[in-house]
């Protein structure tokens, strides 16, 4: 996928004016946060589970190589194969090779953000293999030539009208504006595809070292049909998703659905362990796990290691005021919202994604709701520091900071300047006490008045009170 993160500012301006998008984002804000809060309220141990999940992830990351070794050993013992892929390109080629070895014409796909990360669909398509997305949201996006705007609800940026139009165009059926009818249409269209596909590709929410299993957590059942009906099942996942045991996986499952959609549990939690067994009447004959690194191992041992705790629940973006205002596509790459603002610079380079860690009000809500307690604001600040160090910040920011630091290092001058600034602003504001226009402050005064400072500066008050 093309990286459009450098265009964040223009994209945000357009998104804010887009009535259709704003209507769609209203559905998100009205839904997820309230549902999560209700689910959390029903489980008094929720915060304790979050502490345990954070600690367990830290333990896993400190022993990541060893748990991955154990996972591979057990996948192999189950009759499957693990493929290690350092880059997105390695992963794409590995998957294409497996498809070609099967003579595959079409592959069905369950929802997988890692497959978006490695740009799998375009690559397969360009090499003569047709990918068919089967998750309802992803299917809608594929029909429209669109990309996910959210890691759990990929089509959240679309309205019912958008979906009805896309289906009417592609299905050649009478138009319906009933979501139930539209879903039935997709169900019918995809039945044939499930059976016709030569290969089924799914993601994985977790990889279980103890048993060599992968698990998908879904509500639709499309992932299960994707992985059960074709002759070959390919799981595409990433190295940080490994957990030690089924019990450890359970800790994360208790947090995942509640944090994501506010459900007690997703409808289908399905463990896959290798190809079909002797005597089995269905299931794939081949089982491949494609493990993608793509910059993750470089995060180990750095400040960014904490980001590898992420279980992709989407709570951070569901609660983010910036995401809620501009939507996921404005972020310009695969992962949006706060988690995307931390991951994207790692994966596409800070020189391409420097605006994202700046696109935050630093309200802290993301960290507050994160089930594995990732300090997202701190990690965004980490990228801001890197950006400044590498001289990538815009000139305005750099000169502004230089100007400020000149005064900050000269306290007497700073106080004099602040005090007289105060006085000047009051003078300009006159009797109203408000400023309608101010040079360099158009971002504020174009939309509302700026109240003039009403008293003395902090330092003046401090001195007065200590006297």
């Amino acid at each position, binding site marked *: 996928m093309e990286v459009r993160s450098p265009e964040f500012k223009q994209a945000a301006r357009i998104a804010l004016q887009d009535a259709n998008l704003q209507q*769609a984002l209203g*559905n998100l804000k*009205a*839904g997820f946060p309230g549902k999560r809060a209700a689910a959390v309220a029903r*489980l*008094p*141990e929720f915060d*304790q*589970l979050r502490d345990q999940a954070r600690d367990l992830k830290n*333990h896993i990351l400190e*022993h990541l*190589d*060893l748990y991955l070794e*154990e996972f591979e050993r057990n996948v192999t013992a*189950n009759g499957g194969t693990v493929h290690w*892929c*350092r880059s997105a390109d390695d992963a794409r080629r590995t998957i294409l090779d497996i498809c070609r070895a099967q003579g595959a014409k079409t592959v069905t796909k369950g929802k997988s953000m890692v497959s978006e990360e490695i740009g799998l669909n375009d690559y397969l398509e360009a090499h003569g293999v047709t990918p068919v997305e089967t*998750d*309802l949201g992803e299917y*809608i996006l594929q029909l429209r030539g669109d990309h996910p705007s959210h890691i759990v*609800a990929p089509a*959240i940026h679309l*309205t*019912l009208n958008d979906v009805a139009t896309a289906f009417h165009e592609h299905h050649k059926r009478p138009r319906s504006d009933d*979501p139930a009818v539209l*879903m039935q249409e*997709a169900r019918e269209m995809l*039945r044939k595809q*499930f059976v016709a596909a030569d290969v089924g590709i799914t993601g994985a929410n977790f990889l279980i*070292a*103890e048993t060599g*299993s992968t698990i998908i957590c879904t509500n*639709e*059942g*499309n992932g*299960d*049909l994707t992985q*059960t*009906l074709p002759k070959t099942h390919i799981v595409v996942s990433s*190295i940080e998703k490994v957990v*030690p*045991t089924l*019990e450890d996986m*359970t800790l994360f*499952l208790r947090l995942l659905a509640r944090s994501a959609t506010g459900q*007690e*549990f997703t*409808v289908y*939690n399905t*463990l896959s*362990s290798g190809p079909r*067994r002797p*005597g*089995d*009447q*269905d*299931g794939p004959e081949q089982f491949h796990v494609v493990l993608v*690194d793509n910059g993750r191992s470089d995060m180990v*041992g*750095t400040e960014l290691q904490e980001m590898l705790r992420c279980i992709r629940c989407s709570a951070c973006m569901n609660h983010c005021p910036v995401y809620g205002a501009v939507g996921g596509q404005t972020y310009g790459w695969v992962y949006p919202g706060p988690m995307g603002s931390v991951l994207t610079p790692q994966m596409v380079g800070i020189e391409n994604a420097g605006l994202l860690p700046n696109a935050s009000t630093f309200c802290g809500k993301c960290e507050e709701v994160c089930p594995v307690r990732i300090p997202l604001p701190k990690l965004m600040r980490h990228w801001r520091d890197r950006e400044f160090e590498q001289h990538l910040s815009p000139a305005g920011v750099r000169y502004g900071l230089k100007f400020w630091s000149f005064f900050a290092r000269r306290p007497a001058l700073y106080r004099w300047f602040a005090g007289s600034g105060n006085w000047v602003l009051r003078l300009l504001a006159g009797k109203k006490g408000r400023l309608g226009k101010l040079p360099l402050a158009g971002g504020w005064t174009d939309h509302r008045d700026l109240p003039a400072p009403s008293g003395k500066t902090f330092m003046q008050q401090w001195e007065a009170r200590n006297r």
Partner: protein
Amino acid sequence: MSKAEIFNRIRSGLRVQASDDVRRAAVRARLDARAANLIPQRAQLPTAQRLKLFIDMAIESAAELVELQHRSELAGAVESWLADNGIDQLVMASDANLTDLAWSGNGLVREQRPAEVGDAASLTNAFCGIAETGTLMLYSGSDSPTTLNFLPDTHLVVLAASTIVGPYEDAWQKLRQATGGQMPRTVNLITGPSRSADIEQRLQMGAHGPRRLVIFLLHDE
């Protein structure tokens, strides 16, 4: 090649020493212990309350429930449920617990095979129930094809009340005992029928999996 590179990066990031016996011992201990993490109070209830919780949570997840006392009532109950819903075809697992029932053979085509596109209803056995969220555990084997759980429009599942456990952790233990520690190809945790909210966050039932999930709960078993 890639594998060695990835592992080298991880190990150098973690500053792993040449001899990492301590780390290896920690990992082995965790894998062998299979210790439970915090189990919510809700999942630790005496038998009667556990059964009630299972029923409440299953219904909340939009599963339908048919309560029976004995297995002897099962075939009749399934046949009349299907008849009431205008369904005259049933695909089922070849599990002897299901095939040996007293089927009347009236007006119902029963087949033992994996599911196919267009099947109206399937019948399978649940391995156990999990009260915490009203969840069913099923697993694949020579007499229980996985497609039965996903392709048909209606999925009928038989669950013995005595197999209902409180938390997921108890179900994993039970599974390990039943399978001699060898994970089946597929383990399904199923909580209600298929659904999607991908269109404007409006919940619709029956996306790609079964539109209806009916649990036949056997109290005496």
